[in-house]
């Protein structure tokens, strides 16, 4: 089977997020009040050949931990992508 997977990479809690804070700071001037805790991250989409959804996610998580994210500063969350 072939599973579509998405990986969301965001900075770990507690790590400064200059992109997120810059966006957040600019929001009031654009008229968006009451928006908080903006975090910027990356999204990866790919397909994995696997025998089960769990196996696909396991492969994706390994790939995400090894390459797509830097565990020193980032978290990677894998999920099956909706079509």
């Amino acid at each position, binding site marked *: 089977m072939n599973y579509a997977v998405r990986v969301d990479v965001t900075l770990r809690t507690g790590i400064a997020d200059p992109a997120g804070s810059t966006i957040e700071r600019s929001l009031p001037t654009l008229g968006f009040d009451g928006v908080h805790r903006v975090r910027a991250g990356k999204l990866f989409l790919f397909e994995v050949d696997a025998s089960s959804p769990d196996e696909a996610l396991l492969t994706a998580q390994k790939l995400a931990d090894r390459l797509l994210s*830097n565990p020193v500063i980032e978290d990677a969350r894998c999920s099956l992508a909706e079509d």
Partner: protein
Amino acid sequence: MTSVAVVVFPGSNCEYDAARALESLGASATLVFHSAQDLSAFDGVVLPGGFAHGDYLRPGALARFSPVMSALERFAAGGGPVLGICNGFQVLTEAGLLPGALQKNRGLTFLCQPETLVVASTRSVLTRAANVGDELVIPINHFSGNYTCDDATHRELVENDQVVLRYRDNPNGSRDDIAGISNRAGNVVGLMPHPERAMSSLLGSADGLVLLRGFLGLEPAFSGR
């Protein structure tokens, strides 16, 4: 030290500058492509600045998987002097040879400007010819030079005297004003500023001399200001 390998990843761009600076001090510098699997013939290794593999995923993220990196790990484990400049520093942290990570600059723009660095430790191959407290003017040239690490790592860095250079006026948001660090043994050093760009007053500063002379194991001819 006479023979230095300057590693070229596709996308490196400071390799000629690093080689030219080392050669001006009498060393022989060889450009070594990232596919090399053996560095044992060299007395030292420099990972130069640039944008290895386009920096597309994260700076240094893909370079870490180049064949040369296992050779570099062996070289470093054997006590060989290793210097990562700018992108080279980013590669060393991604590869786990140095702790922490380099994030985007606080101001979210690229910065190319001279910075005053303060020597924080002389227990490294890069700073061994300088004195603690020396102020050196050396340019930075990066988008992701904001040094980040967790509290435990930071404590360890400080306790083991691994912070080798600090910014006098922090330009990028680095934790504890850190501009460069070493591993515990002091033979692997990474820094964001470019000492090879500060080798002559014609180009604005000669303060990089004391660092690269130290790296090559030459007698200190000059020790800051």
